[in-house]
């Protein structure tokens, strides 16, 4: 009886896997566009990058110098659609310019983690033995700290500056990249094509760069996308605590910190920067999840 049920179920499953493949990237892009949630993520990220790119063109006011203390904390109006902040500056313009800083944070801190993590992970996986032991134990130790706390502590001792906040975030994110790369390297290290490359006299560096690392591209891209979102979130938290971007920089977390004192009188000063952070991070999360499914359909269940 149970067997017939099984068979029935099997035949009911649609089989449309015969579609022609157009290569990994084209396929992945198609899958992202077809999935509603990752398409939304892609659109949010695209808008975010576009706004950052053309900020000076679309921002109606200067984010730092156009201040009018008499009209400070003014509520949203036709002229200032998001109102004015504690220094009488246009919040909308500051948000637009803030996207540039967020792009900068995402790119710099994640690149830091990416370069460091990939090199360490590749070295650990490829050379193995004591080097692997040392590197991966160090990564375990970094993971033994709660990440936000470690970033806060590093920024605190290096000095409250956006640059130091980005370094701290980079350090905190490094182990995640190292782990991904190491496990992929371990899984391909014994493959015959690696042995072949070695036997025709390729250097270790060439083998790692040309033959090993391309295998980790997909998980690295997913991790990078997700990390950009959390980096923006963490940097905003650091700036909010006064450890990252300093006033008058229109960084979103710093803007929240500025609005905090006026939360009862002028909640609009806080509402908009928080929403900006939330939507951008959401965009990167959606896109990252979508990329994971698109680049490795086996993982999707």
């Amino acid at each position, binding site marked *: 009886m149970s067997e017939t049920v099984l068979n029935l179920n099997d035949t009911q499953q649609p089989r449309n896997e015969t579609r022609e493949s157009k290569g990994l990237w084209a396929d992945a892009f198609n899958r992202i566009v077809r999935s509603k949630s990752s398409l939304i993520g892609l659109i949010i990220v695209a808008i975010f990058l576009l706004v950052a790119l053309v900020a000076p063109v679309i921002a109606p006011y200067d984010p730092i110098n156009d201040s009018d203390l008499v009209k400070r904390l003014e509520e949203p109006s036709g002229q200032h659609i998001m109102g004015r902040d504690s220094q009488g500056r246009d919040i909308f313009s500051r948000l637009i310019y803030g996207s540039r800083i967020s792009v900068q944070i995402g790119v710099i801190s994640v690149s830091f983690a990416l370069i460091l993590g990939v090199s360490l992970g590749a070295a650990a996986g490829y050379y193995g033995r004591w080097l692997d032991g040392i590197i991966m134990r160090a990564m375990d130790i970094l993971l033994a*700290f*709660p990440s936000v706390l470690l970033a*806060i502590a590093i920024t*605190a*001792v290096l000095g409250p500056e956006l640059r130091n906040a980005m370094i701290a975030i980079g350090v905190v994110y490094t182990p995640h990249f190292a782990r991904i790369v190491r496990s992929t390297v371990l899984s391909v290290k014994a493959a015959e094509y690696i042995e072949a490359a070695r036997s025709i006299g390729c250097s270790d560096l060439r083998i790692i760069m040309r033959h090993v690392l391309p295998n980790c591209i997909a998980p690295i891209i997913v991790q990078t996308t997700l990390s950009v*979102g959390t980096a923006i979130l963490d940097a905003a938290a650091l700036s909010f*605590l006064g450890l990252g971007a300093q006033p008058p920089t229109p960084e979103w977390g710093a803007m929240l910190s500025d609005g905090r004192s006026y939360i009862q009188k002028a909640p609009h000063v806080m*509402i908009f920067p928080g929403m900006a*952070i*939330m939507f951008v991070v959401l965009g990167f999360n959606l896109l990252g999840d979508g990329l994971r499914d698109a680049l490795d359909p086996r993982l999707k269940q």
Partner: protein
Amino acid sequence: MTRYIIKRLLGLIPVIIGVSICAFLLIHLIPGDPARAILGERATPESLAAVREQLGLNDPLHIQYLRFMGQLIQGDFGRSVITNSLVIEEFAERFPATMELSIAAMTIAILVGVLAGVISAVKQYSWFDNISMIGALFGVSVPIFWLGLMMQWLFAFKLGLLDASARLSVELRLDNITNFYVLDSILTGNWEALFDSLKHLILPSLALATIPMAIIARMTRSSMLEVLRQDYIRTARAKGLKEKVVIFRHALKNAFLPVLTVMGLQFGTLLGGAVLTETIFSWPGIGRLMYEAIMQRDFPVVQSGILIISLIFVFINLVVDILYSFVDPRIRVN
């Protein structure tokens, strides 16, 4: 089982040593002279020398580390350079506040997260599933300090329903037994204080619960979906068991393993998130203590604080691993 626990405890030693080295080196990351960084630009040479002496900065690095470790083993976590009080005492005093907040947050996160995850999995692609998964996505994307402030604005300032800061209203008195205010007020039968401390606890614990709640809901859902497809679930249904029994006794029990791991990790992360939440809600716990120490450049407190919190974090993860091996004996063998 005992062997497994001993093995795991021994495995902790290198991690603890590594963590202590990191915490030790933290103070040496300060650009320039740490003593000057603590005291500021206008410090006199005498006070600089005194702080250097107190922190033992005059000795070679390895001697400093060995002394640091020697003191740690004796339970001496140093003194604050601002208040001169013992760091360990400050932490012990504030620890119950953070634990109360974390336990409340974790309780909310587990109850709501697991329930939402189970319902979403059972009714996959229903409106409930869609809404709770969108909610979970927002939950991991929202800055919790902003969410906390928005909740303060709405529930405390606009509606006046709940309290936005501190653990208890100033005019109330409460005899401290455990320093867990909710527990203390129950133990002493002080119902007014119980009601008041709950009113103070709800907003910060909700804010702190947001991220773990979202992650637990997503994890429970995907884990449940996987289990629900398995043959023994079909067998259980075929036997004519009630759906409730199938889902909670048969499916959830097995789906719970990965969720348990996530819970452990999240509980540790709460301690990090507590810095933000406690700062916003003026909650007198160790997170706020850390924040104040950072702002006053009280580096010995920062150093010991991060060490203590990380040790708690490592310890919680160990407990979760051991629990895990209890529930799933296969772990012990591997």
